[in-house]
């Protein structure tokens, strides 16, 4: 029963995505909505990202320093480990887990409210492909802006780690030396590739839950929660798959 339902939901999700990715009715209107989504989903998330990244960068540095007190380990290991954590996992996966709460619930509740107030039916009656009109700009908008948010996260988190060194836990120059040690450029590309996939996962899953909601405001709230939970699960699963594919 659970398997059949899951399979049915996956089929519906694929059908919705198929309907979403068509040629827009009016390119001008599509670009207006696309830019609006970039602003709403991406630019508006920058304050949250800055705060979270700054503090996580600080915490990473402090905790690594506390747990690496061995005289056998060079001091720059703190900077090196902070960089690896930030580039490989925090800037993409953890950031997207955080953003799925904000963006995922936003998308699911917006589209869900449009569904229960018959605004989507109104679009369909007019002859507009509602899936294409509503969902495609959100997916493309988030996929476009998320790599930039990842770069902002990387820079801010590493800056946070450097700034906390001035409290006396580590020499800032040693930290800088650590984050430059054995730098592999592909780690940055790895994070950016993951962000593209996660952007699609968050926006498409949340749009699916919003678009297929039935009932009233209670169901919209439930759809928002389900969208965030499912997005998080799928981010974690795809994270493992991508790590295995790209790094091993």
């Amino acid at each position, binding site marked *: 029963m659970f398997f059949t339902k899951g399979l049915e939901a996956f089929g519906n999700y694929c059908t919705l995505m198929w309907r979403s990715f068509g040629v827009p009715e009016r390119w001008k209107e599509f670009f207006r909505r696309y830019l609006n989504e970039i602003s709403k989903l991406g630019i508006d998330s920058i304050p949250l990202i800055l705060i979270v990244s700054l503090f996580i960068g600080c915490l990473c540095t402090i905790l690594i320093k506390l747990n690496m007190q061995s005289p056998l380990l060079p001091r720059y290991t703190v900077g090196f480990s902070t960089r690896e954590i930030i580039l490989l996992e925090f800037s993409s996966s953890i950031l997207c887990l955080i953003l799925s709460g904000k963006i995922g619930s936003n998308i699911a509740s917006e589209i869900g409210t449009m569904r229960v*107030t018959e*605004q989507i039916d109104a679009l369909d*009656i007019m*002859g507009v492909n509602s899936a294409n009109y509503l969902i495609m700009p959100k997916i493309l908008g988030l996929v476009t802006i998320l790599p930039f948010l990842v770069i902002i996260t990387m820079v801010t988190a590493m800056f946070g780690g450097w700034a906390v060194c001035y409290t006396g836990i580590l020499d800032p120059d040693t930290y800088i030396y650590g984050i430059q040690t054995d730098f592999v450029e592909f780690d940055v590309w790895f994070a950016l590739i993951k962000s593209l996939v996660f952007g699609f996962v968050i926006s498409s899953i949340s749009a699916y839950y919003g678009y297929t909601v039935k009932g009233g405001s209670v169901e919209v709230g439930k759809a928002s929660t389900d969208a965030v939970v499912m997005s998080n699960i799928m981010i974690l699963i795809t994270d493992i798959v991508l790590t295995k594919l790209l790094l091993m």
Partner: protein
Amino acid sequence: MIEVKNLDKFFDGGTRQVLHNISAKFYDGKVNLIIGQSGSGKTVLVKNLVGLFKPENGEILYDGRDITLMNRKELKEIRKEIGMLFQGSALFDSETVMGNVMFPLMMFSDMTPEQQRERAQFCIDRVNLTGSADKYPAELSGGMQKRAAIARAIALNPKYLFCDEPNSGLDPKTSIVIDQLLWDITHEFDITTIINTHDMNSVMGIGENIIFVNKGHLGWVGTKDEIYDQDNEDLNNFVYATDLFRDVRKYRRQHGYTKTKVEY
């Protein structure tokens, strides 16, 4: 004209039949009402008519074109001839009244932005919302939202106008204003208007062609002048559900009004 022939609609994987062999005609340039109690299948019938649901059996002919046989592209073309007023107005929250009315023009017309604005303003003026063009739906009363939705529905000069419970949630006076507006628009622009309602005041005010749906079956067809004196128990239970209409029946009987012959 829209004609429905032998329409059946099932839900729950074919286990629950909601519409049973419905056949009816909706005439051009007239206000056609679909009436019936809540849960009788009115909304399902309307959603079949506009193509939001696909019936299991039967035909839905728009001037001879069967929409049940159309593919998505053909259906999209015919939908450009349809305007619809939803029960909850269904205005786009993020757009002003002007934005809402301009939306179908922007998506489907070849007008310049100035012409779109001009046409939208005409529709807004026509529904007496002149001063509210820059307001958002949340700033409007229920009646004003309905009028804005009517303006949006007529923006593309539709041939067919569907209205799902246009008076729900409105006070009697505002309901009369909306009914009158729908009547005027129907005759002014020669639209085939189909209204789904259970409001007897609307029925008596604007019902030129009335289709009574009862438990998913076609219960009766006639006009507002014929509806009072029928030997149809289900119809009479619906019509005379309120004291007001029971008093009307009493008055008519006391004053010797005779039954009207009806052709089904």
